[in-house]
């Protein structure tokens, strides 16, 4: 709100009612019933930027991870209803990942703390007023005499500055704690280049990408930026296409998107990098001069030696090394959390060398950006020690949940408990907050003022886009109020509000020759100020000589039949912060397609040896603990590995997260040396419990049985203009063609049918909406699915319903395997986003007895919810099975207060007993048409963008009017890679898929 002063005075209960006014449609949940809002409550004061029925967009910054993507927050009737990427933002350029979009469910989470609380004598929490709360905090910090520690997960920015200033003024210590802090990378950069920062990686430029277990499409650094770049580099464009090779013990989503994935022995990847560097050095000159000093160091690491260690054939290593060197520029990345073994630092150093000798540093590896990072695991351990020693009496935890994200074996919670007064500003009652004495729930990022500096040169602004949902207070204001009360050392820190503090801080940034207000307004509109970081040229530091390789070490004594344990982060749950968002829990994991619970991945061979079926509950035991979870047989593993995803197994953190799944951290060594938490450094024994639990996955048949659903061409075929071979694939006739007579007859019949159809409504002057999906760009990240959930009020159904296959994903990502059936044959993964194909001859339409499914004049396959009686015949007759039935009033349980505030008022909330499906975002189409009509113009290409197309980080989805020859969609649909799903059925889909392009398999 631009005008806080007056609107603040509307009390919150009223505010919710105010939403009731025009958002009535959205608040009434019973969808297709005519129940109505009976009261009209007007705004007290009209805010200039809110017009009922018209969406207002505010620029802001995403705080779901430290990539600091820019946001456009869509608000209706003063409620945030959707998060989209900010096109002007250099990091994400208008795109947004699933986790970022689910930030909305953090804002409206039922598990949020509704106001300040303090622990009473009996240990329970009881509500207090903000004044009390601030007084207590002030008294305690006043009395602490410097024995104060602050654990903060906040991104660098003005608030963080205030926090440090505040703490240091009190003589306390600030620990910036990020669960995934990439310490090995920074250590390696110190060692090899003598620079302590995380560089920015330019995937778009790279022609050849080698990933040593860095999941850059999931959680590594800035996934959205990387995916954008990856799509640019790896997407097929006029005959050109980069190559991506992934090494690692587990095939993550990144590995699935690689042209080659090699399962190497866990922890042996450093020597691989060194061997490649060695080969490059020995075979070609042109490496930076100072690299020559490395020859000696690299000499012992021959490809053969590497082959020994990794289990890869030396030839493969040589080939990849040569390809890597010859592609200019190329890029090697390492340091993924899931691959943090004991030798992680060694690995990152080796990869630095590899990049350096290949001349990539400064090309695709750009120092100077200094990506946001914390103080690292080491300093957290130090703090733990100080807590243990009782050197700290007051702890303030902000946007961090160490008690969950540190392994139990680190005994952190015990040490934490030794502090006498513990304060949490968490929005939720998470594990750490549960241990605290004072809860000061802060505002959600969408409710408060702040800024973020994800990297040098980029500052994103956050502004309150709506009234706070609950009685919370921005922590910045808390700090200032405390300062106000205490004075003394804090006297220097004073501002009427954090907003004011922020503005003063920004005064310094005003460029010469412009006044603050215009500058500030401009920044607010653009979402921040975006410059480019000055590149910092780096040279090899003496430490570079220390690079080397040591055999991987693992906790636990090596015994027969045990496995290396991998705890890896998933793109949905990250470090566990996603676990209380229904969207992210229901969003099937892009790799395994499992929802709502934990699982243990085991290799098919191992499963055969141990006679383990999917769903059999396995007990994993390490020296540090043991967990039980159902087995999932996954071919993308090194046979010596078992893997469990991170992020679940919360003991607090709201109804959705609490008691769901297991916490993989329980098996890890919390006191491991080396300054980082090793996630791939433990041995576990696997025991069958004999218990079973059906795995709640959305996975169907993983083989496409040659039905030509996920089609692919080799690079050669694509270049030579071969169309995807559909005739034989799409089920019709084995190889041989129809006799010409039949072909002619079929063609004639089709035309006649279309002719007659025209009697109805394929009238010429209407547009025909169509979509193109480029499978060469799609990475299966599922951002589009979340976007669809947010845009179309799709309810989450929960694990029990998923077990019955009743998920409501209007757009789903199908993941098919190719090959991998005989030993040695590489396993290829293909992702196909499948939504309603809006067929011209839609089989679903004629079978509906009440015309609830019918064809609109503009080529949409219309679905009229309020006419539907629920015979479900349409779904039976849909070859793509993209129609979803609302079996049990899903809306009621999915959108309960306050989650219902996120509902999009432009879209009907479907009632129980009604068929629903992708509408090509018809509400956006009609909205754009209304707008165009108001402005007496016709729609232009790009006026209508569906939610999925808007979100897709790799821009694989394009939407538009296919009748307009100038439109992008029309051009792409005529691409020679284009094909339709199940084309032989002659249902004439409006969605064209562009076949994936494969590098010829070599070696």
């Amino acid at each position, binding site marked *: 709100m631009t005008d806080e002063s007056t609107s603040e005075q509307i009390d919150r209960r009223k505010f919710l009612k105010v939403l009731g006014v025009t958002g009535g449609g959205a608040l009434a949940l019973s969808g297709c019933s005519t129940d109505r809002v009976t009261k009209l409550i007007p705004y007290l004061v009209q805010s200039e930027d809110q017009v009922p029925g018209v969406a207002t967009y505010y620029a802001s910054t995403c705080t779901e991870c430290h990539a600091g993507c820019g946001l456009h927050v869509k608000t209706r009737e003063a409620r945030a209803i959707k998060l989209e990427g900010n096109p002007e933002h250099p990091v994400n350029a208008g795109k947004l990942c699933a986790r970022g979009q689910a930030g909305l469910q953090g804002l409206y989470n039922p598990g949020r703390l509704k106001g300040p609380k303090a622990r009473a004598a009996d240990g329970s929490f009881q509500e207090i007023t903000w004044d009390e709360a601030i007084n207590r905090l002030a008294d305690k910090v006043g009395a602490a005499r410097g024995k104060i520690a602050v654990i903060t997960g906040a991104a660098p920015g003005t608030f963080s500055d205030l926090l440090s200033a505040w703490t240091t003024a009190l003589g306390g210590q600030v620990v910036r704690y990020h669960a995934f802090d990439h310490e090995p990378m920074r250590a390696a950069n110190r060692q090899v280049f003598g620079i302590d920062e995380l560089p920015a990686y330019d995937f778009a430029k790279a022609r050849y990408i080698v990933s040593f277990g860095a999941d850059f499409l999931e959680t590594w650094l800035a996934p959205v930026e990387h995916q954008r770049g990856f799509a640019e580099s790896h997407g097929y464009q006029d005959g050109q296409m980069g190559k991506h090779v992934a090494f690692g013990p587990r095939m993550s989503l990144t590995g699935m998107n690689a042209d080659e994935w090699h399962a190497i022995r866990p922890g042996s990847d450093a020597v691989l990098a060194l061997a490649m560097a060695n080969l490059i050095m020995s075979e070609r000159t042109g490496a930076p001069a100072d690299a020559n000093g490395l020859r000696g160091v690299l000499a012992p690491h021959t490809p053969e030696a590497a082959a020994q260690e990794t289990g890869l054939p030396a030839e493969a290593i040589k080939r990849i090394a040569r390809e890597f060197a010859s592609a200019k520029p190329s890029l090697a990345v390492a340091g993924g959390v899931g691959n943090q073994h004991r030798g992680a630092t060694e690995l990152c150093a080796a990869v630095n060398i590899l990049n350096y000798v290949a001349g990539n540093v400064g090309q695709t590896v750009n120092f100077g950006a200094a990506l946001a990072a914390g103080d690292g695991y080491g300093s957290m351990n130090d703090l733990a020690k100080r807590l243990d020693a009782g050197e700290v009496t007051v702890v303030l935890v902000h946007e961090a949940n160490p008690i969950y994200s540190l392994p139990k074996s680190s005994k952190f919670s015990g040490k934490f408990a030794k502090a006498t007064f513990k304060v949490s500003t968490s929005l939720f009652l998470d594990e750490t907050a549960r241990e605290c004495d004072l809860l000061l729930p802060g505002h959600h990022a969408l409710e408060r003022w702040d800024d973020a500096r994800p990297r040098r040169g980029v500052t994103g602004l956050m502004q309150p886009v709506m009234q706070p949902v609950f009685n919370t207070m921005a922590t910045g204001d808390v700090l200032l109020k405390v300062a106000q009360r205490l004075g003394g050392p804090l006297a220097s820190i004073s501002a009427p509000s954090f907003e004011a503090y922020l503005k003063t801080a920004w005064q310094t940034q005003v460029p010469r020759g412009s006044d603050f207000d215009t500058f500030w307004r401009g920044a607010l509109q653009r979402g921040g100020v975006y410059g480019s970081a000055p590149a910092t040229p780096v040279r090899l530091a003496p430490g570079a000589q220390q690079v080397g390789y040591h055999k991987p070490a693992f906790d636990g004594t090596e015994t027969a039949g045990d496995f290396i344990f991998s705890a890896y982060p998933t793109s949905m749950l990250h470090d566990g912060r996603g676990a209380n968002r229904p969207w992210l829990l229901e969003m099937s994991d892009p790799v395994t397609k499992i929802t709502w619970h934990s699982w243990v991945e085991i290799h098919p061979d191992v499963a055969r040896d141990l006679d383990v079926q999917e769903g059999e509950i396995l007990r994993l035991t390490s020296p540090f603990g043991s967990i039980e979870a159902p087995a999932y047989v996954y071919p993308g593993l090194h046979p010596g590995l078992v893997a469990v995803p991170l992020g679940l197994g919360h003991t607090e953190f709201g109804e959705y997260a609490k008691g769901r799944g297991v916490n993989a951290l329980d098996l890890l060594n919390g006191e491991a040396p080396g300054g980082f938490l090793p996630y791939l450094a433990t041995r576990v024994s696997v025991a069958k419990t004999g218990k079973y639990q059906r795995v709640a996955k959305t996975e169907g048949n993983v083989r496409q049985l040659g039905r030509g659903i996920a089609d692919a061409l080799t690079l050669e075929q694509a270049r030579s203009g071969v169309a995807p071979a559909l005739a034989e694939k799409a089920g019709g006739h084995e190889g041989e063609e129809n006799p010409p007579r039949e072909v002619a007859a079929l063609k004639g019949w089709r035309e006649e*049918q*279309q002719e*007659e*159809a025209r*009697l*109805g*409504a*394929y009238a010429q002057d209407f547009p025909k909406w169509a979509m193109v999906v480029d499978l060469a760009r799609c990475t299966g990240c599922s951002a589009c699915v979340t976007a669809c959930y947010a845009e179309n009020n799709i309810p989450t159904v929960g694990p029990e319903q998923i077990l019955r296959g009743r998920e409501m994903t209007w757009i789903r990502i199908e993941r098919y395997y190719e090959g991998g059936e005989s030993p040695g044959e590489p396993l290829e993964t293909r992702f196909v986003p499948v939504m309603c194909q809006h067929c*011209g*001859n*839609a*089989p*679903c*339409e*004629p079978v*509906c007895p009440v*015309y609830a*499914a*019918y*064809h609109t004049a503009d080529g949409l396959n219309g679905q009229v919810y309020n006419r539907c009686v629920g015979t479900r015949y349409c779904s039976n007759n849909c070859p793509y099975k993209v129609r979803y039935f609302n079996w049990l009033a899903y809306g009621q349980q999915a959108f309960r207060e306050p989650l219902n505030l996120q509902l999009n008022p432009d879209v009907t909330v479907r009632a129980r007993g009604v068929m629903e499906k992708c509408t090509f975002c018809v509400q956006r189409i009609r909205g754009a048409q209304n707008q165009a009509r108001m402005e007496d113009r016709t729609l232009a290409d790009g006026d209508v963008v569906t939610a999925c197309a808007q979100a897709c980080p790799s821009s694989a989805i394009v939407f538009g009017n296919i009748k307009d020859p100038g439109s992008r969609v029309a051009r792409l649909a005529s691409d020679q890679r284009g094909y339709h799903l199940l084309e032989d059925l002659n249902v*004439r889909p409006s969605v064209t898929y562009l076949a994936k392009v494969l590098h010829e398999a070599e070696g």
Partner: protein
Amino acid sequence: MAKPVAGVLGSFVHIDAATEAIRALRAEGRTGLTVYTAAANHEVEEALGITSSPVRLFTLIGGLTGCAAGFGMTLWMSVDWPLLVGGKPIASVPPYVVLAFELTILIGALSTVAGTLILSLLKPTTGLAYDPSFSDDRIGIFVPVGPEQAGSVERLLKTAGAVEVRRED
């Protein structure tokens, strides 16, 4: 209850006797006979010289009406609010044949029954003498005559072989 019709009611066990009686009565020029049987019997029909019933006309008319209604309804309703489904013509006859057929049968059958009722009501049986045994194993013949001629009729029936003759007045 209408007032009883005067006449003579003869009850037979044997079919040939009954038919004989009928023939004799018709030879005498008696009209308005009513013959009761427990089941349809063509010998009786022959004796009475009955022509086949006009009920089939109702069936025909009903059937045709149904067929027309079927096509009319479907075609008109399709174009009344034209909606395109599955790229098929708005008013496509083939599927509508099914509905036309069903309505043909439905209205055809109903009108047949209606016809039977109407036709039966044209010859009301109220007031005619009746005996429960007629629905069992007896054949009844009722001759509406005045008291003056009743005697001769009784005699005729007896001679024909009636097991029982009753006079109604």
